[in-house]
C-alpha cells in the first residue's frame, strides 16, 4: 500500500519496485493468452501503464497481486477481442511434430510415459494454436480452469462474471475445444482406448 501511495504521488522508483515485484506474475498470466513473446510483453506493458493511471482506484483492500491479475485478465481479453483474428486450425496445418505428439497420445492415452521437454513444447505450442482458433472468453476459461485448475469461484472473482456464467462459459468452451481437437484426431482412425 505504501508503494502504491508513493507511486501515486509520482515516485518513479516506487513504481519501478512494483514492476520488479509483480512483472513475473503479470507475464505468467499474459502468456496464458498469447503465444508470441512480443505479444506477451506488449500486453504486460499495457497492464502496467493502465495500473499506473489507475493507481488512485487501488484502495488496498485486496492484494496488489490480485488487483494486477484482474487488470491483466481484462487487458488481455480486450486485446484479443479487438484483434478479432482467429486462424482456423485444421489437420493439414499440423506440423510433423504435432502429428506425432497426437499419435503418441492416442497410443498412450492413460499414461504419461513419454513426457519430455521437447514433447512438452510441442504440446504447449499445439495448445496455443488450438486456443487461438477459439473465442477469447473460451481461451481464458480453458486456460485457467483446465490448465491452472482454477475453481468456478476463482474464475468469477477474476473476471467479475457470475458463477453460473462461468459454468456455462466453461461448458461451451470445453465443447468447442473438444470439437476442434476431434477434427485433428479424426485425420486418422482412432485406436482403442487403453486403460
Amino acid at each position, binding site marked *: 500500500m505504501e508503494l502504491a501511495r508513493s507511486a501515486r504521488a509520482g515516485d*518513479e522508483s516506487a*513504481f*519501478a519496485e512494483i*514492476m*520488479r515485484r509483480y*512483472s*513475473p506474475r503479470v*507475464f*505468467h498470466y*499474459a*502468456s*496464458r493468452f498469447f503465444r508470441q*513473446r512480443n505479444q*506477451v*510483453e506488449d500486453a*504486460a*506493458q499495457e497492464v*502496467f*501503464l493502465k495500473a*499506473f493511471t489507475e493507481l488512485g482506484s487501488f484502495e488496498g483492500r485486496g492484494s496488489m497481486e490480485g488487483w494486477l491479475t484482474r487488470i491483466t485478465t481484462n487487458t488481455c481479453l480486450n486485446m484479443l477481442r479487438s484483434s478479432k483474428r482467429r486462424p482456423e486450425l485444421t489437420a493439414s496445418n499440423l506440423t510433423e511434430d504435432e502429428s506425432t505428439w*497426437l499419435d503418441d*497420445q*492416442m497410443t498412450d*492415452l492413460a499414461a*504419461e510415459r513419454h513426457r519430455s521437454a521437447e514433447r*512438452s*513444447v510441442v*504440446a*504447449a505450442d*499445439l*495448445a*496455443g494454436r*488450438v*486456443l487461438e482458433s477459439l473465442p477469447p472468453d473460451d481461451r481464458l476459461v*480453458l*486456460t485457467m*480452469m*483446465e*490448465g*491452472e*485448475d482454477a475453481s468456478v469461484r476463482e474464475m468469477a472473482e477474476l473476471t467479475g462474471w457470475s458463477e453460473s456464467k462461468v459454468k456455462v462459459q*466453461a*461448458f461451451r468452451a*470445453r*465443447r468447442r*475445444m*473438444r*470439437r476442434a*481437437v*476431434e477434427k485433428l*484426431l*479424426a485425420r486418422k482412425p*482412432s485406436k482403442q*482406448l487403453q*486403460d
Partner: protein
Amino acid sequence: MSQKEARHIVTLIENTPFAGLSEAELSVIRIHTADCHACRLAFEAAYVSTMMLKERARESVEPSPFFQTRVLATLREQEATESWSLDKLWRAAGALASSMVATVALLMVLTFALPATQESSSRVNAYSPEAVLMNEAGDDLSSDSQVLSTLYGAEEDLVK
C-alpha cells in the same frame, strides 16, 4: 448403447474439468466408449485437450531485463505528450481570446467610426440637385442663381 446414454457421456465430459472426473465416472466412460466410437473420440479429444492445456500451463514467459526500462520510458513519453497537449490547449485558448478581442474592436470601429465617415461624405455632396432643392444641408450658403442654374441644369440633363 442408446443415443440418450451416449449424450450423457459427452455431457459428463463437458460439465466437469477432465482432472475432476472421479474414478467411478471414468469407469462408466470406459465401459461406454468400448462400444461407442463417437463417444470414444469425444473422450480422447477431451483427454488430449487437457494434456495440451496442462503442458501449456507449465510454460512461463519471464520478463526481459529491459522491460522495466521500456515501460518507464513509455510512461515518461506519455506524460510529456500530455503536458504538451495541455500547453497546446492553453495556446489555442489564448489565440481564441485574442481573436475575440480583435473582433470586438473591429465591431466598435464599424459602429462608431463608419457613420461619421458617411456623414462627411454626405457633406461633400451637399450641392447635388436633390440636396439643393430640399436644402438638406440646412445652410443658406447657396445663392438663388446657384439654385436656378442647378435646377435648369438638372432638367437639361434629363431632356438629354
